[in-house]
């Protein structure tokens, strides 16, 4: 019995033309998706003449290989303060992530586990706003940020990002699925709501919190419209806005532009490669595609 069951599998393991073909197709697709980024890196390492002319322009492996483009843009400290922009992006992304995790956890706990008047009506309101396109709110949000005196400050880059209802919605789903018995036992032991949240809910909701944290970080890192409107000075720009502003002036110097783009892409690509397992699991878990 067992031999007849296992034999087909053993044969399949040796060589399966269908699987080999599929691997070929997927490898080709993967290469197509990687090619633009590879070309960006390649161009950034070419000499200025090679970028735009002759055989050099067609090479994937730059010859000669040069860091000239990187030295060129990094020497333009005044117009291209890339380290400052990177530091801004790191600071803002970390702050927004912390803010969202704290306020959304507290709120989700209130909507999922506490009974209070107005709860269901308010939650309905939160869910209803999830379909509001963010672009439609840019002009009034900008005026509100100005009225608060936050224009061109870190507050403008951080605080408004905590308003989204998505994290509350997501965490509430997770908190609601935790069995009530666990909570009741803790209450009998004399735990107040904050202790229930800390000792019962949070340990069990770690995957959801991790997913929300990672996606909030990535979304903030790449945020475009808000930071574009809420800041003005070169010193307050985040990396994506800095690159967009910088390229307006150097849009025909492709070598230096590709070096700038590579510098902007490298930190987030490395972070992704390090955390890819969690990120991909998080997408499946939360239905957030990361954009």
């Amino acid at each position, binding site marked *: 019995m067992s031999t007849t069951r296992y034999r087909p599998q053993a044969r399949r393991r040796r060589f399966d033309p269908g699987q080999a073909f599929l691997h070929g197709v997927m490898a080709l697709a993967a290469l197509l998706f990687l090619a633009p980024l590879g070309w960006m890196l390649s161009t950034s390492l070419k000499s200025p003449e090679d970028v735009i002319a002759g055989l050099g322009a067609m090479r994937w492996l730059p010859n000669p290989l040069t860091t000239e483009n990187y030295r060129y843009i990094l020497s333009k400290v005044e117009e291209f303060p890339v380290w400052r922009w990177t530091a801004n992006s790191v600071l803002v992304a970390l702050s927004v992530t912390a803010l969202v995790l704290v306020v959304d956890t507290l709120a989700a706990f209130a909507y999922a586990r506490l009974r209070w008047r107005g709860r269901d009506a308010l939650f309905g309101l939160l869910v209803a706003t999830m379909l509001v396109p963010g672009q439609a709110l840019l002009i009034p949000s900008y005026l509100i940020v100005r009225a608060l005196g936050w224009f061109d400050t870190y507050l403008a880059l951080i605080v408004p990002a905590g308003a989204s209802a998505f994290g509350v919605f997501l965490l509430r789903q997770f908190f609601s699925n935790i069995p009530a018995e666990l909570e009741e036992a803790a209450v009998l032991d004399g735990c107040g709501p904050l202790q229930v949240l800390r000792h019962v809910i949070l340990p069990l909701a770690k995957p959801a919190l991790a997913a929300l944290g990672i996606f909030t970080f990535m979304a903030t890192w790449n945020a475009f419209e808000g930071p574009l409107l809420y800041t003005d000075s070169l010193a307050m720009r985040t990396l994506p806005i800095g690159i967009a502003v910088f390229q307006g002036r150097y849009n025909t110097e492709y070598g230096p532009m590709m070096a700038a783009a590579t510098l902007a*892409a490298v930190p987030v690509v490395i972070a992704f490669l390090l955390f890819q397992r969690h990120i991909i699991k998080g997408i499946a878990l939360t239905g957030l595609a990361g954009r």
Partner: protein
Amino acid sequence: MSSSRNALRRADRIGWLFALPHLVLFAVFLLAPVGYGFYLSLHRWHVLAQDHPFVGFANYRAALADDIFWLALRNTLLFVVIAVPFGNAVSLLLALGLNGLRKASTPYKVAVYLPVVVSISVVAVLWRWLYNREVGLLNLTAKGFVDALRSLGLPLAPFDPIPWLADPSLVMLSIALMTIWWTAGGNMILYLAGLGNIPEDYYEAARIDGATNAQRFWHVTWPLLRPTTLFCLVISVLGSFQIFGQSYVLFAPGSGPARSGLTLALYMYQQGFSQYEIGYGAAIAYLLFALVLGLTVVQFRLFNAERRAREGRAI
């Protein structure tokens, strides 16, 4: 009696206290802008003007009579019509491929997802270079391909470089192609998760009935994947209608040859922040809002109707 009422009040207080930090942010930066935006759209609100008179729906009427508004709407719709179906098809095909692999699918997954993590500025800067008419990678590769075929004796015309970003009729197609490359990985993972939720038994049953691959797809995968497809489509439509950064980085401020890259969100931005016509910009924003909301409702209806039709047939 009174003690239980006190307990209730205390529970109310605790509930509100936990919800409050988020509620304050939500009220100031989400709810208030929704209301304030509508208020602005009903006023003639120039940034430099002293007063901002109430004008009723004049801004909306002005938008509907504005040729550039219609052009921006046309461009946006063109983008949605290309990017949503093709983008989802690409994501679904990639997910089907990954799902069919018995092992070692992670490297492909990572490669396709990689562009998703890069910001729109990097994407647009990079693709303007790829789309370069003379020495961009796309035209270089196409030229090499055509030249190779010609050298084999095929009767082809010499390669004429494609004006990806210079020809108004190609601009939205080029932006859609770039966007699909940028975003396909996200939906691919969602489709893959959806495929993973389809019980193996259904495929087993189909196999025993002698179903072909195509039959298995149309009679098992496609119907059972519908919730995922609906979710991905709604999210894609919602995102695509708001397209902004692509044109902003590629073309702003004029937004390309003959304004062919001008989108609704970008036109709203130009009116609000370049022309300082806050009221008019807010009206465009609300029109965009209404359009997106309407389309989301229509999509849910269509999918429900399709499901009912399918279930009716099954019975």
